């Protein structure tokens, strides 16, 4: 008996369709354990739009900023490769001219000119990184935090090209040997994925403020931008604030208070 080509193709296609259908049904049936559910933690700090205000007047010295960076990097197992090519940073520092390019002038007051401003992920309302990510490995949560799913990242680095703030770092090497002291409560990353500041979402879930905020002695104010009574809103309502590259329309959620010297409440 010989199988004609037509018949062979028919059989083949039917078989393939059958396998595909079975796999799809299988997926439906075995989705999860029956009668289980997942909830948010009662202790968790909640907001509609997390935002940060950086009061640069309160950051008197470079050490103040470095303390915040160290707190962040220690908490999140950020490696130190000792070279700028492979460098990974969740929070860094820039002078006014580089943090706010286009807003500098030649006659800036020395204090502002020399000051190191903390720079971090802006958790933009319209994040370009999220728009370009081909796998939704980076995504915006309902509370405004732009998060990373390191399980899903394929390491294409499109998000790094898209970010207008240089907030993202790539694991060019295995980071583990370069972490001085591993914090066992937070995962490390693996080589080949992009990482960045997560607004300490893992701490907010436990009811704690972000690590940098905790280490800032009040220079960083963190809260819900959608709540008119929140401290961030109070501070923004009473002080002059700027954001990085607002003209790009990404709507950063990190605000900077510059000069004025007036203490906030």
């Amino acid at each position, binding site marked *: 008996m010989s199988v004609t080509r037509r018949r062979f193709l028919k059989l083949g296609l039917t078989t393939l369709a059958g396998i595909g259908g079975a796999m799809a049904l299988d997926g439906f049936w075995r989705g999860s354990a029956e009668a289980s559910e997942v909830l948010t933690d009662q202790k968790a700090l909640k907001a509609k739009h997390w935002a940060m205000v950086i009061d640069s007047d309160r950051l008197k010295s470079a050490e103040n900023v470095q303390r915040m960076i160290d707190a962040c990097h220690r908490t999140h197992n950020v490696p130190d490769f000792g070279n*700028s*090519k*492979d*460098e*990974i940073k969740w929070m860094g520092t*820039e002078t006014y*001219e*580089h*943090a706010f*390019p*286009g807003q500098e002038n030649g006659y800036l007051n020395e204090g502002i000119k020399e000051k190191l401003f903390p*720079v971090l992920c802006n958790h933009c309302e319209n994040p*370009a990184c999220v*728009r*370009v*990510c*081909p*796998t*939704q*490995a980076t995504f915006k949560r309902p509370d405004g935090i732009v998060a990373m799913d390191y399980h*899903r*990242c*394929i*390491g*294409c*680095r*499109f998000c*790094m*090209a*898209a*970010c*207008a*703030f*240089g907030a993202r*770092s*790539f*694991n*060019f*090497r*295995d980071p583990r040997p370069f972490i001085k002291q591993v914090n066992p409560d937070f995962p490390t990353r*693996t*080589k*080949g*994925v*992009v990482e960045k500041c997560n607004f300490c979402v893992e701490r907010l879930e436990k009811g704690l403020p972000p690590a940098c905020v905790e280490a800032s002695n009040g220079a960083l104010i963190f809260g819900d931008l959608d709540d008119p009574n929140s401290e961030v809103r109070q501070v923004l309502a009473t002080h002059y604030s700027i954001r990085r*590259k607002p003209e*790009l*329309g*990404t709507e950063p959620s990190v605000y900077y208070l510059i000069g004025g010297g007036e203490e906030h409440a």
Partner: protein
Amino acid sequence: MLEKALSGSRRYWAWVAVLLALIAVGFSTYLKQYHEGLGITGMSRDVSWGLYIAQFTFLVGVAASAVMVAIPYYLHNYKKFGKIVILGEFLAVASVVMCVLFIFVDLGQPVRVLNVLLHPTPHSVMFWDMIVLSGYLLLNIIIGWTSLGAERKGFPPPSWVKPLIYIAIPWAVSIHTVTAFLYAGLPGRSHWLTAIMAARFLASAFAAGPALLVILCLLLRRLSTFDAGRESIQALAKIVAYAMSANVFFFLLEVFTAFYSHIPEHMAPIRYLFFGLDGHRGLVGFMWSAAILAFVGIGLLINPSTRKNERVLPFALAAVFIAAWIDKGLGLIVGGFIPNPMGRITEYAPTLPEIWITLGVYSIGLLVLTVLYKVAIAVREEESLAAHG
């Protein structure tokens, strides 16, 4: 038909052996990259795409250029291109294969590449690029292979191929447009944030692709019985001349907008590329070479006496091809990252392993091209044998 690639002259096998050796070196270097990470390349936090993505971008252009042969032949019945249309399609196949491989070797987590299909994301241009590139690959394989198979049997191509041929024309434009959109839609990269990016890409593609095709035709004439015909070569050379002129014109438009508007962010990358910034001059020599080669190439190709001189022609075409390669395969991508979003400068130079991997991918592409061209030419030889008794 594939069996035709299994018999050939000593020279053919020597060439295949050279390619296989380069592939082996590239592959073993890739294994090193796979284990150690992309840290073995010259890419950095600031210049996060380098040689691989630049080659990908350049080769999408070479792939798209098959339409420069297909349009005159299929839409305007320009019979002279009948012989080379298959070469254009097979060049597209080899180029897309290389594009896909260059994306793959650039990934930090290559084993997760199918996440792009598992979590399809229509708001990502990369998702659409994957669709148009794989579609284009499929179209060209089907069209090329079926046409050649039919030709071998002395039949016209089956009628169902016709619609595919017509679809392939706008599809070719789409692959390069979507690739341009990868860059042209990013808010923080002023060098790329330009509406003319896709047009520039197409112009440079329609110069570099046909230039390569003519060089290949001239090579085939020397190495095999295949002769593309003087007239079709001259027609292609004219296409190259005007496409390259458009490419240079578009680039000058960028220069005008950047420097007359005098917006620092728009000037900085062009300044870096051609004059260096703060003492960083890594690409200055390359960019001026590209500029000179572009003008020399255009001059030699527009001037009828030099274009018709087949001793000069290959050099003119090579000049255009190299100029387009430096512009797109080096300057455009790297320049987009310099200076970085904070206005600081980190330069980029590929490392040796990165260059080996790049050569390895090119060798795979050349091997695919060699095999496909070998088949095409063998089929033609068979035909002419049959025709002449």
